[in-house]
Structures are given as C-alpha cells and as structure tokens.
C-alpha cells in the first residue's frame, strides 16, 4: 500500500512539474544567465512557508531552475498555519532547511531562541550593494541571538509594494473622475463620489487569525503621511508610544476613511467582517460596489480574473498620495518575505547563492506578483507593465519604509496591533485603541 502510494506521489509530482513547464514557457530561460551553482545531485532541501495555491506554483517553478542547475531536490511544504507550525517544528528539532517568514517579528523571535543559522557577512554586504535601499533590507533581516550578538539571518526575496490605490480606469472615465495627486485631492474625490451617489472605498480587514493586518497597513501609510519618517522609526521601536498624539492622529485619519458609512461599501460595520481578498472584487462587480481600493501590489491575484484585469486595462493603480500641506515628500511603504536558514547544509548554502543571481529573480518576475529590489535584475522580465512600474518604484526607492507591524515584536505587530485595529473598526475609539496596544507593549518590555 505504502509503496503504491509513494509511486503515485512521485508521478503526481513529476506530472505537476511537467504541466507547469508546459503552461509557462520555461521560466528559467531568463534575460540574465544563471551562473555555476555547483552540483548537488540527490541532495534534498526542505522549505517551509506560507505560500499556497498559485503562489506555491510560482515558487515551485522558480526553485525548479535551481534543481535543474544542480540536481538537488527541493521539497516545499506550504500551509496557511505556517506561523504556528514552524514554531513547533523548530522547537522539536524538525527544522526544514529553509523557512520563509512572512513577518520579521517571528523570525527575530526564532533567532533569539537559537533556531536560525547566520547567513554570513558576505551575503549581507552583497545585499547592501545590490539591493535598492540595500542597507535597510539587511537591517530587516538582522536579529540578535540569545547571547545578544547581532547577525544577518533573513534574506529578503519576493517583495510587496504597499501605498497603492487600485481602481478601474473605465469606471473613472464613465463617472468623469480624475486621478488625485494629493491626499487633499483624494479626500475631495471621495466626497465627490459620495455626492454622485457612488461609494468610494472597499475596505476589508478580515483575514482569519491575522484579522486586522490591512488596517495596520493603512495606519502605517497614514503615519508616513502625517508625521516625519524619523517619528515613524521611533514609533516602530516604541520610543514614540502608541497613545501619543501623532499615532492617534493617524488613527483618526484612518477612521475618517474606514469608519465613514458613506465612504465604505457595505457600511463601516462591514469592514471587520469583509475578507481582505474579497474587498477588491467590489471594483469589478456589476454594478461596481466601490471605485477605489488601497492595497499592496499582490492584490491583483485576488481580482475575479486573477490579475488579468491589470494586463488588459480593466484595472490600474495610482500612488496613495501624500498631503500637499504636510510637505513630507513621497513616502513609500513596502514589505518582503524573509528566507532564513534553519538547518545548514552545503546545498542550502548554494540555494542562498542562487537567490543572489539576477536570473533567480527574473524567473519569478516573469510569472507575476513578484517584485524585487535587486538592481541587477532586468526590468523587462516583469510579466506586465504594471509590475514593471511598481518594480521601478521599488528599486529606485530612496525614502522607503518597511511595514511597521512586521518590524514590531510578534506580540504587537502580529498580535495586539491587529486585534485592536479590528476593535477600532468595530467602533472602539482611537484613545482606547492606542492605550490598549501600548499596555500590551509595556507588558512585554
């Protein structure tokens, strides 16, 4: 029985690769050539992460390039419960070779427990020189271990650009709306939409046990637009408390959007219960239930036609604009997944070398929903012009800040911040929300 099963499994695997290869005209055939990766015939590299479905398919297609080059075998296991499972696996000596952390907070916790293997200074200095805003990416993956020694652990690969507002150009044309370039203009446009009997925004923060994270993205974008980047950094490290006037002000501004029954499709009370991936579907329903949606670069995968809309012009995005009056420049917010080594092996080391190759980035760029800060990657490899536009913003970034909730300790950034912002969506006032998060932070200090 078991043998038959194994055989079936292997053939299914082979079949899925064959199919993927057929559907995607060889993703490994990239503009940049892949260097010599060595030979690791038969060596198994296990990878654990949270990507599933389409994302998982693209990941498998990409790592397949490494398999073809070296003969190594990569086994990926993805689960939406990654954050819970990886902790159990690491603590019980069942570590995979590579763990892909969606949040630096959790990676930092695991480094402190001594479960991560340092990637070495060479890789860190490579990243400083070859990534746009490189040193901040290195900082993102640098944590201290139990002894307090700081090392580079997390290799950022596959990035998202936040600060984008998605809309349907045709709807804008039908209604006679112009794309705003200032926050004042955006608010005026929203009011205009309300006056016209339209609903401007689709907002949803439900996301299973991560409910509330979309609200934290809004908060971060608004922090960058209402106060200085320096204050933002202080907020991340809690030098600026959560119940300080700056933070509460940003929360109130977010409330002006999300807690306004006229602004939000389905009314303000629907925000907490709308799945974040269903929210943008309102742009494309007949008739459209909203006209704008603020979300990161990955969101087209949630559109009804899985992002084809962007390619054929049914959907486009504009930059979430800053206040003209605040004079804070054009801040950009982003995030990335962190690839960490949780079990050392020569083949695994070689895989991290592989990720420094421009070709490894281009292979995924050509499949979609993948952005990179790698300066050597050929922008022409991006699957769509829209992705290219985002990629340019990312690799040329100067004023760039990371998702604050990702940088905060896990108990806050993936805990109290999420849950309290959900409570805020359900009607809790800003002061209480700020006080509660600050109290949670004080408790772990």
């Amino acid at each position, binding site marked *: 029985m078991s043998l038959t099963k194994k055989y079936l499994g292997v053939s299914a695997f082979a079949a899925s690769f064959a199919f993927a290869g057929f559907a995607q005209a060889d993703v490994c055939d990239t503009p940049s050539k892949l260097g010599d990766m060595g030979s690791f015939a038969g060596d198994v590299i296990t990878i654990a992460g949270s990507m599933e479905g389409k994302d998982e398919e693209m990941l498998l297609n990409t790592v397949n390039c490494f398999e073809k080059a070296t003969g190594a075998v990569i086994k990926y296991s993805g689960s939406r419960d990654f954050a819970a499972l990886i902790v159990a696996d690491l603590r019980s*000596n069942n570590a995979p070779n590579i763990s892909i952390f969606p949040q630096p907070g959790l990676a930092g916790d695991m480094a402190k427990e001594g479960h991560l293997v340092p990637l070495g200074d060479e890789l860190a200095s490579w990243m400083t020189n070859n990534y746009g805003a490189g040193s901040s990416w290195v900082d993102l993956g640098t944590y201290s271990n139990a002894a307090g020694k700081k090392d580079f652990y997390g290799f950022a690969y596959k990035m998202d650009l936040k600060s984008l507002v998605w809309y349907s150009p045709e709807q804008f044309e039908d209604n006679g709306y112009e794309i705003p370039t200032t926050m004042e203009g955006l608010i005026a446009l929203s009011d205009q939409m309300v006056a016209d009997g339209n609903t401007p925004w689709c907002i949803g923060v439900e996301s299973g046990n991560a409910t509330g994270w979309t609200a934290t993205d809004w908060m971060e974008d608004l922090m960058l637009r209402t106060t200085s980047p320096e204050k933002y950094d202080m907020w991340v490290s809690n030098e600026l408390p959560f119940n300080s006037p700056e933070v509460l002000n940003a929360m109130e501004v977010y409330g002006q959007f999300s807690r306004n029954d006229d602004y939000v499709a389905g009314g303000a009370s629907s925000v907490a219960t709308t799945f974040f991936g269903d929210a943008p579907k309102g742009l494309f329903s007949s008739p459209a239930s909203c006209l704008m949606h603020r979300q990161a670069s990955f969101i087209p995968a949630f559109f009804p036609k899985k992002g084809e809309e962007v390619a054929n012009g049914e959907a486009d995005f504009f930059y979430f604009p800053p206040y003209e009056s605040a004079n804070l420049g054009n801040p950009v917010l982003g995030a990335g997944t962190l690839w960490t080594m949780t079990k050392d092996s020569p083949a695994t080391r070689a895989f991290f070398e592989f990720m420094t190759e421009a070709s490894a980035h281009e292979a995924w760029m050509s499949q979609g929903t993948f952005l990179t800060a790698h300066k050597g990657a050929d922008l022409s490899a991006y699957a769509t012009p829209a992705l290219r536009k985002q990629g340019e913003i990312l690799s040329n970034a100067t004023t760039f800040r990371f998702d604050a909730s990702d940088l905060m300790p896990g108990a806050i950034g993936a805990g109290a911040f999420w849950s309290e912002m959900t409570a805020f969506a359900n009607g809790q006032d800003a002061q209480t929300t700020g006080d509660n998060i600050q109290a949670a932070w004080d408790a772990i200090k």
Partner: protein
Amino acid sequence: MITKTLSNFVLALIVFIWVVPFVALVSTSLRSETEAKTAGFWTAFTPTELGHRFSTNDKSDGNKVFSIKGNIFERLNKDKNSFLVSGEVKSILIKQRITDPDNSEKTKLVKKLVPAGEVMKVRNGDFVFKGNGDFTWTFSKETSPKPKNLDVFINQNPIFGADAYIEVLFDNKNVPNALISSFIVTIPATIIPITIAAFAAYAFAWMQFPGRDWLFVIVVSLMVVPTQLAFLPILQGFSGIASWATALNQWLTDCEITDSCQVASKSFASLWITHTAFGLPLAIYLLRNYIVGLPKELLQSARIDGASHLQIFTKLIIPLSVPALASFSIFQFLWVWNDLIVALYIGPNNASDLVFPIRLQKQLGTFKDQLHLLNASAVISMIVPVLVFLSMQRYFIRGLLAGSVKGG
C-alpha cells in the same frame, strides 16, 4: 396520537436542518465560481437576475464602420466552454455626467437602467438591444469605436456543471493522493487502538491483578488530556526516535550520509501512534464497560471447561462484543478521517502525502479564491464517512447503548 405527530414534526425539522447545508454544499459545488459568489444557492434552481459585464466589441481593429452588431450572450460566453449564460436580457446600466440643471457650474452624475428596446447613448453612438441579447450600435458618421464594457442585467436560467469535480479529480493528483493518504492513516489508526483496547478491556473486566481499579481510573482520567498540550513533547519524541532510526539505517544498510538514509520524524507511522495513544482511553473505557456486562455464568462455565484466558477472549468475548467494537471503530474512523490539527503538526508534510483535511484547507488557496474547488473536494471527502456510517449504522445504534445496560 398528538405526541406522535409532534415527534414526527420535530424529526422532520431536524432532518431539514441537517439537509439544508448538504444541499447548499452540493448545489454550490455544481455552480460556476462567479455565480456562486454573487447569489445564494437557493437562487440556483430558478431563473435569477444577475449582473454581468460584457464588452461591445473586441479590440478596436481600426476599421471604420457605421454600426456594430452582436449578441450579448455570445460576448459573455466567448471564452467559455461551460457554464454558458442564457436567459433574457433585462436592462443595461448606463452612467453619464451632465451639467447640473440646478447649478450650471456643476456637473451631475446620472445613472439609468435602460430596458430592452430603448435607445441609449454610448460613446456618441446609439446603442439598442433586444431581450434575446442582439444589439446594434450605430453612429452618425463612420468611426472605429473603442470597445466599451457595459453592466448588463440578465434574468438567467439555472446552469449547473461538474467542472469543479473534473478539475479536482483529474487535473492533478492532489485530491486522489489525499484520499489514498487518508486511508493509509485512518485504517491502521482505527485497527491498532481497537485491538489493544479489546485486550486491555478484557483484562480490566475479568482478570484479577493488584491495582486493577486504580490503573483503570488512571487510564480513564487520561481522556481529559487535550491533544494540543502534547504536540511539542510528542514531536520531540518522534524526532529523537527518527534520529536513532536514521543511525540504525546507516549502520544496517551502509548507505552514505545523505538524505536517502534519513528517516522522517513526521510520517504516517507517527500519525498511527499518536491517534492510537489518544484513542485508547475512550476505547478501553467503552469496551470494558461493555465486556463487564456480559453474563458472568457464560465465562465461568468456560473456565470450568478448562478454557484459557486467550481462548475465552477470542472465542467468547470478541464475538459477543461486535456491536461495541463496531461502534468504537466508527467513532475512531470518523475522528481520524476528519482530523486536521494532529495531521498538520505530526503528519508528513510533503505535497503528495497530505491527508484529506489538509488538502481541503489548501484547496482554498493562499488567496481563498478557489471556493468552487473546496466545495467539490468537500463533497468528495464526505462520501467516505457517509458510506462507513450507512453500512455500520445498526451497530452504531446498538453500540451507543454499550455499557449502559448491565446484564448478568
């Protein structure tokens, strides 16, 4: 008479409450993805008015024309070979910005639902459509019109299709593999605990040994240990065993120290052991209470005739305990079949060995966008427990009373 009517009514109500979700699941799994997301399953059986977007023409080809003719249904069904939309076109939503009649400096947005037969202005052309979907778009002078997407409301006929099932069962081997994996896990995880428990239950019921009652109390009290509490120690244990097994494997087979020698700590065997451990207390408790109720005289006469414990057990106890054994197997089978969390933490995690509940969870995709696949897979996963239950239900009902009526 009245009580009988009442109880029949209550029974019918309970059946209704249980059948509705089933009908919902099955009917949703047979509908198209977009339709299932826009209108509830109860609308699936009768013509329902739903909104669609269709494009008036394909990419503007630059040819200058006076008019474009086409059919809305053809446009909608162009790239599809299933779930073809049919029915009657009711209206098209048209939006225009005009000068505000009250304030000539401002503009005003006008939205209008245009019924069939009425002429409307679309990109300076006259657009008119019929209930059967035919439309004409005429211009006063020759132009090459840019395509336009319009919101159309169609009173559409019910459409069902088995596309999701075909995709789930034949497009890749994920679901068939998961079915096999689930059987590999479930069958031993049912048989092993029931075998051990039957022996233990006999000993607790009919054999004299010191501390018997205390031991029984301890076993029974283990039922309250929550599974979640034990994950980490269990996993640590398995990883210890796996490294021993790897070393043994290397020593025995003399294989090189590569991954081929590696014995996985998360495997089907770990699942069997874990499910056995957590199933045993209840199994022992249920079976012991049943076995203790068997007629004492029967066993005593067997003893007098010189039967050993093993003979009594195999020749008398086992045949007499079939209802209790069967009912516990159903419990254990259903519990293991539907288990997600133990499999997630302790089971094998490579793509081809995932058990059904994990596959179901993954079926939804990172983007929770494959609801149709989830529904179809859920129906498939239900078939096995339903079959098991139906084929063994007479034992199940008898077994529910196991231990409650003492004989002898």
